[in-house]
């Protein structure tokens, strides 16, 4: 048999009808994740056409995007940003009841950001096809699942048929050789990769991250890397499952148990690219050269080491981006005054991210005038963090400890920055206005975010970590 890439193995196993010149392939979907923002119109469409859900057992819904992250009011009501947000949540609750979809809503101990809870529950498994009406579905690729974001029309397709019409994408291997230096993490790495291949460098491709530096990453870190594949234009990012993956998944609620677990692991071990498998494109990245990395413009491809000079604009659009950000060519981003710091989002809201921020913040206070929000990715993360006392570290430092949700990543729940404010954010998008109209976003790792909160300026976390070690 010919050598195949990991992508090809997962793809081939899900072809219901093969692609022809005239028609795309029909691909079976194993897991369909749902949230309140991109599903209402799809449910309405099904209702109008009198169609049932084909496999409600393969769906999992949660509330995350428009939900408040402040605790309930004294009267038990929720502090929604506006009536529409509240109505949207109520609509998903009603839709899930009507169509029989498992919803991890307000009363669930597992509610959280859709891409955080899928893996936590063990719903995300190697070799699966996973979709969600959300572009950061690529996160689940960290487990060797082919996972990508879809539009609302396609959400309806999957609801009604459990299938999608897809042309086979091209494949790109991103070999990350060597070892990340101390104090440099997965977020720095993925920003560095996007800065290298460009914001559209992955368009039309599925990325496979591989190499020694990738194998050395924890599952949380692998999720951070795969999460941002879409920021290079790629619909999906993959990492071959290995012992790290299996150990992380074992005994999670939705994974097979006992003999079925052993059989699954045997199957999953075959999910790696064969020697000699061919990719359409290959890129090499030297992990040893990665430094704490931040963005300086208005898309995630405008990323550089924080101590490197901001490049001069080469066209009108880059000039506009630098103007918007008030970034100065020739000057490094390090040292830029900060107004708001956000630790959260499906990129960096898991326990290890919070630990990373807490390590820097421990025993310190954030700078006067800086507002810092720490928003755990899920109720489970919140519980674990509180058990370790991380919330005390944050609140003692002067940060706000919030209820799980997307929060300032997308700023549609009332958590937002004011026009002109500079936000150091662990999220994934620095588009104009993403964190509030006129707000300026600098993407960074949790450690950099925490260091910047303390300094009141964009700061290198290694300076703080060294002190702790000493």
């Amino acid at each position: 048999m010919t050598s195949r890439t990991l992508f090809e193995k997962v793809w081939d196993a899900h072809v219901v009808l093969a692609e022809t010149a005239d028609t795309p392939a029909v691909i079976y979907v194993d897991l369909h994740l749902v949230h309140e923002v991109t599903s209402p119109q799809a449910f309405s469409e099904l209702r109008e056409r009198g169609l049932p859900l084909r496999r409600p057992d393969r769906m999992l819904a949660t509330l995350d995007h428009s939900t408040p992250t402040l605790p309930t009011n004294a009267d038990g009501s929720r502090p929604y940003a506006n009536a529409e947000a509240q109505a949207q949540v109520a609509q998903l609750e009603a839709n899930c009841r009507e169509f029989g979809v498992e919803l991890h809503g307000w009363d669930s101990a597992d509610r959280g950001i859709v891409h955080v809870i899928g893996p936590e529950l063990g719903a995300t498994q190697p070799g699966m096809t996973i979709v969600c009406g959300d572009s950061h579905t690529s996160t689940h690729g960290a487990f060797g699942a082919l996972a990508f974001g879809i539009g609302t029309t396609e959400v309806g397709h999957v609801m009604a048929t459990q299938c999608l019409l897809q042309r086979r994408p091209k494949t790109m291997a991103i070999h990350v050789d060597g070892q990340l230096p101390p104090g440099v993490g997965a977020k720095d790495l993925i920003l560095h990769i996007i800065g290298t291949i460009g914001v559209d460098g992955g368009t039309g491709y599925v990325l496979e991250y591989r190499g020694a530096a990738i194998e050395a990453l924890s599952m949380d870190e692998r999720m951070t890397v795969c999460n941002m594949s879409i920021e290079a234009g790629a619909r999906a990012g993959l990492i071959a499952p290995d012992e790290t993956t299996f150990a992380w998944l074992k005994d999670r609620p939705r994974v097979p148990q006992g003999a079925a677990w052993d059989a699954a692991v045997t199957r999953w071990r075959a999910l790696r690219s064969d020697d000699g498998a061919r990719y359409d494109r290959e890129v090499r990245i030297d992990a040893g050269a990665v430094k704490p990395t931040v963005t300086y413009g208005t898309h995630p491809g405008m990323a550089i080491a924080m101590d490197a000079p901001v490049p001069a604009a080469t066209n009108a659009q880059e000039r506009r981006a630098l103007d918007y950000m008030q970034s100065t060519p020739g000057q490094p981003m390090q040292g830029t005054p900060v107004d708001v710091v956000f630790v959260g989002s499906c990129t960096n809201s898991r326990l290890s991210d919070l630990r990373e921020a807490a390590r820097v913040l421990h025993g310190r206070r954030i700078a006067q005038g800086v507002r810092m929000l720490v928003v755990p990715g899920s109720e489970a993360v919140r519980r674990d963090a509180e058990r370790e006392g991380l919330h005390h570290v944050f609140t003692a430092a002067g940060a706000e400890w919030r209820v799980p949700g997307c929060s300032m990543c997308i700023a549609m729940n009332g958590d937002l920055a004011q026009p002109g404010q500079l936000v150091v954010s662990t999220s994934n998008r620095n588009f104009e206005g993403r964190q509030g109209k006129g707000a300026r976003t600098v993407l960074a790792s949790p450690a950099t975010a925490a260091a910047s909160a303390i300094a009141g300026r964009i700061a290198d976390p290694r300076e703080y970590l060294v002190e702790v070690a000493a």
Partner: protein
Amino acid sequence: MNPITRLHSRTAVLADENIDTDRIIPARFLTTTTREGLGQLCFHDWRYQADGSDNPAFPLNRPEARGCSILVAGRNFGCGSSREHAPWALLDYGIQAVLCSEIADIFRGNALKNGLLAIVIDELEHRWLLKHPGIELAIDVREQYIALPDGGRIPFRLEPFARHCLLNGVDQLGYLLQQGEAIHRYEQQEQAA
């Protein structure tokens, strides 16, 4: 969906590269639960000034851009969020085609499913169109070319199935539903494995 075979219009140009879907429709408007009425929110934060009046610096606010239904946009249009609200908003705003040398994957798929012609053209011709706003174009979906006023033609290629659906007003869900037998077979094999 109504069949689409031809589209005539003058062009409007948004030359910026990497126009993301947050710019096409900001996230704070995504609390809607319908597809309708998003045109007034299209490009909201770019299009209006703080006091709600039209921003004269937004290219589509210029008198000559009014009524244009073909948008020539800078490279990598529609990147970022998968929100289908972006093509819904563009269509409701009056844009029926986007011409670009590169269009983000998810946006392109979403657009075509809604009858918004997301068409990739060669870089050279793209550059030329970016520099010449307001020219009259005719897009022929069946023959896959764009006719220029001087008789010249810009060829393009749509994914054949998307083109078939556009030309015949075929609804893709209808097509998928017809594959029920194959889907059932797949599910049975999967269960047996």
